[in-house]
């Protein structure tokens, strides 16, 4: 999935230097090029358009404030998405965890007992809710890797650069996430194990 205009690496560094000098046009160019990627990162964590847009604003504000800390030669997109991810995690911790627990106090295990273990009876809406509950239940890093790979459709090496972890770690987290989801969601998906 192509998101936003792509900018050459050299051009990015030149634009960041301009931002360091307070150049408004350069800043707007960077926002235009990366806004969708940042939005997707925030949305995949928060699943709310307005909140994701708030995180987009805060991410670019942080970029502007920390532009002088960016070292030439580093991966700009990885650096920016790392900021977006951290802000999304903070936002989630502050506003979502309790809210979602309140909205849906039953655990997946409780839902499983109450649910009809027949996939045919589960509507797409119910399936979506159950899947999202499973995503929420994943450990933070597993959730991030899974969402980036299958919702944002980033490659493992891109996730590795974005999260600043090795490809091997990305692979391992992805495997654990899929295994856990398979275990939790089996009653709803006609999975026998």
């Amino acid at each position, binding site marked *: 999935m192509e998101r*936003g205009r792509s900018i050459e690496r050299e051009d990015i560094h030149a634009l960041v230097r301009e931002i360091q000098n307070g150049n*408004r046009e350069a*800043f*707007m*160019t960077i*926002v*235009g090029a990366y*806004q*969708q990627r940042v*939005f*997707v990162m925030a*949305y*995949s964590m928060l*699943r709310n*358009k307005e909140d*994701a*847009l708030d995180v*987009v*604003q805060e991410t*670019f*504000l942080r970029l*502007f*404030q920390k532009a002088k800390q960016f070292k030439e030669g580093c991966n700009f997109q990885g650096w920016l998405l790392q900021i977006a991810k951290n802000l999304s995690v903070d936002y989630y911790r502050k506003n979502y965890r309790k809210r979602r627990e309140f909205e849906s106090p039953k655990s997946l295990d409780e839902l499983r007992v109450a649910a009809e273990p027949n996939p045919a009876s589960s509507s*797409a809406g119910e*399936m*979506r809710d159950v*899947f*999202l509950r499973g*995503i929420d239940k994943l450990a933070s890093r597993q959730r991030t890797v*899974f*969402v980036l*790979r*299958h*919702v944002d*459709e980033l*490659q*493992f090496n891109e996730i590795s650069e974005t999260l600043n972890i090795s490809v091997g770690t990305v*692979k*391992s987290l*992805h*495997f654990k*996430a*899929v*295994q856990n*989801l*398979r275990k939790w*969601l*089996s009653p709803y*998906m*006609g*999975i*026998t*194990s």
Partner: protein
Amino acid sequence: MNTCQDLQKDRAAFLAGELGLERREHMASHLKGCARCREAVDEMRKVIDAAALVRGEMEKAIASVDWEALPAKVTDYVFGKTARPRRLTLGEHLRPVMMPVYAGIVLGVILGSLATFLVLKRHAPSAVSDNVFFASPEFIDRVELELARRQTLDYLKKSQYLHQDLAQASSLDKERGMDELASGRAKDLLAKKKYLNPQLGNSRMAKAKVICDQIELLFLELSQISDDLTGVEMKRIQSMIEDRRLLLKISLVEKELEESEV
């Protein structure tokens, strides 16, 4: 079995299309012959396919955002948040319109300094000369009492020695000029007593004062008759010392004074 275990961790990567060519082909050929692994991969595929539900939702959210307008909005927000107030140049600082402000600041500083000076001055101790020693009246009283105690003790000790000498004096001593010596010592002690009198006025020295007064009387008599002290007179003085139990009283008062060190 070993192959199943070896390939177990590659299943998710295989489904995600992240396996290298060689391992992917190895996995594909293994899945053809292994129903168990095939089933596991199918189940994982269902989980991964379920992500499409969320992906669809996100695509809708992305489509609903005005991406053309967003950069300007975000830029306005960021520059609005980080904009610093413009600094005035020196010329702008010195504009006539600013003069009342500076006058007010200067006046405020002067008045503030004056008020601080007055407040601090009121509470400050008065100027003190380096040569003057300050002590509380209580401390001075205690020092005076201690001096009086020490001088009285000294007086009593000397008196005690003189009394002892007189009490043990014999006719032989007269021949040796003992009486003249005793007279001289008595006169010295009388002079000392005059100096001690004001200090003995303290209520805590009352007992010592009584004894000292009695000793003084004895010394007065001694000094008046000492020029030709006869055996009779010597006996009379000795009996006075004995009758009044002066040596005992002196010892008691001495002991008391020694114990009552200030």
